[in-house]
């Protein structure tokens, strides 16, 4: 069994890891995330079966990460870890979403683990939506433009001109067109990793379709499956084809 744990504070994260090792020695912690966007990225990378998510984290809240996991349709169980005060969680005590409080008590953690192992993994999207509405995560405002370095020059790229973002090692490559999308296609390098953009971009305007691709929603033209079962996305204003990985394929179910 593969586990992922996420907490933005180091000590509680280590404590949780050690407690899990004690109550569930058969399981293996494959990733420890330091914030929400990191947790989502690591989930995409490792696709663990169980996630222990802190609720208040920078980037994405634990609830938003759980929402994305639920949207993928993959069989992953979520256990929230919270300090206190998230009263809304109490309603989910016996529901599909389990939670434990910090500092973690071994007995309570063992109980949550037992439940996760008995029950088929499922996360109720409606419950998560209700939770999220109550917690009202703080979102930094979406920037108007991006600052990208092209050679020695720093270029300002308006967000409207962006076609898509692509992960490029530790940086992010942004592909865009100037002049009301009539200009030539260009690209530039941003000094922030792609996963950190997740928290800054408006999810209505930008859609992630792959661990390393975020596309401007209004650029999405069509998705097609090839003979090997891979899905490819075609864009309105670019000849490029972008890969749609499995957790994102439910976005293009068709009717």
């Amino acid at each position, binding site marked *: 069994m593969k586990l992922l744990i996420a907490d*933005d*504070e*180091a*000590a*509680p994260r*280590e*404590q949780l890891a*050690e407690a899990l090792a004690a109550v569930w020695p058969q399981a293996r912690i494959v990733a420890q995330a330091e*914030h929400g*966007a990191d947790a989502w990225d690591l989930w995409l990378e490792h696709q663990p079966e169980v996630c222990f998510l802190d609720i*208040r984290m*920078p*980037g994405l809240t634990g609830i938003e990460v759980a929402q994305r996991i639920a949207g993928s349709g993959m069989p992953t169980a979520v256990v929230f870890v919270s*300090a*206190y*005060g998230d009263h809304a969680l109490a309603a989910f005590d016996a529901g599909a979403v389990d939670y434990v*409080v*910090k*500092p*973690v008590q071994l007995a309570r953690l063992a109980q949550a683990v037992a439940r996760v192992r008995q029950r088929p993994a499922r996360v109720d999207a409606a419950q998560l939506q209700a939770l999220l509405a109550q917690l009202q*995560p*703080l*979102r*930094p*405002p979406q920037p108007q433009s991006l600052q990208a370095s092209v050679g020695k020059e720093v270029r300002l790229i308006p967000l409207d001109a962006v076609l898509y973002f692509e992960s490029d090692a530790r940086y992010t490559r942004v592909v865009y067109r100037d002049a009301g999308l009539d200009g030539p296609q260009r690209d530039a390098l941003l000094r922030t990793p792609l996963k*950190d953009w997740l*928290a800054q971009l408006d999810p209505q305007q930008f859609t992630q379709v792959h661990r390393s691709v975020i596309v401007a929603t209004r650029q999405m033209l069509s998705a097609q499956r090839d003979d090997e079962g891979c899905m490819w996305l075609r864009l309105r204003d670019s000849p490029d084809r972008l890969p749609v990985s499995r957790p994102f394929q439910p976005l293009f179910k068709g009717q």
Partner: protein
Amino acid sequence: MDTALHHPLRDGNRLQRAYYRWAVPYYERLAPELRGHVEALDIALYTRQGLGTWLGALGAWAGATVGLMAAGLSLAAAAAVAALYAVSASFSMLQAWLLPEAFLAKRMALKGLAWLAFGLLAGMAGVGVGQALRNGAFEWEAYRRLFDATKLGVVLGLALICASQILAMWAVAKARRSELERERAQAQLVAERDAAAHAATEARLRLLQGQIQPHFIFNTLATLQHWVDKGDARAAGLLRELTAFLRSSTELLGQASVSLGEEVQAVRHYLSILQARLGERLVVAIDIEPALVPQPLPPGLLLTLVENAVAHGIEPKIGGGRVRVSAALTPVGWRLGVEDDGVGLAGEGGAGVGLANLRQRLQHHFAGNARFSLQPRAEGGTRACIDVEVP
């Protein structure tokens, strides 16, 4: 009305009681403040102290009747006209006194004049019609003769008296209105002061419960627990800071006013705890002008601003940021500032409920000599400032 109090009409003689029983349903339909006036007036009129008023009114009525008779009216006509006038005049005066707003409304004054003119014309027309009915036909000469010099004089005199009466009522209504406005302003001032005092008490209570947020405590305990379990040397320092923070903040919050120095001490403990938990994600700078240390402040104010900077600026930001707390002299007084380079204001600006409360407490504590502002910084993040003017 408190039934336990003696009421001169309700507990008076049979006539007074009868009047009171008749009047109560009317009283009950009035606005409470108006009812007070009306009842006081009734008590003044229908008890012994009202006797003089009634005698005076009787005298005025008799005088007016005699005057009108001298002008050529018959006894009955003169008495009726004088009585009609006296009644209508006193009722309108009463209205001007009780409801100056309604009386002063532009249309009301116009309406009064229109009614006066209408009454005059209608009266004259009525006389014409009466004459025509009696004689079988309308004769202009006979009609004109009716208004000989004396009678015309009476009519015009009455009209003039009415006009001057309206003027007098207008003056009364105006004076009364300004008095009512003064009373209302006074009442509002008192209400505002009460609200500020109430907000201060409530804020202290909320601070006591909320400042020491369970979230903060349990997250800190989670770190502490881990360090204790591991025998980490940092545990002792964190425990000491947590104890010092809890002690200083609970002591602060019980007081009505604290010095900047005491408040900054609590803030230092708070930030050390967060630094222990967040590690490199939080960089702190505290820069307090030594001369300002004894300055008085409402308790918990600076702590609230620092907490907001951490909770809304630094904690939601991937990679964290810096918080700078400063107190400096300005040409007119001094300025308290809390800056962060975090994620910035999320739409709400300076209009949140917590901030309204903060402004109210500042207003209460500094009697209008302090201003609070919350602005985005050009370099990113947020700057909260309190500017205190020292008169």
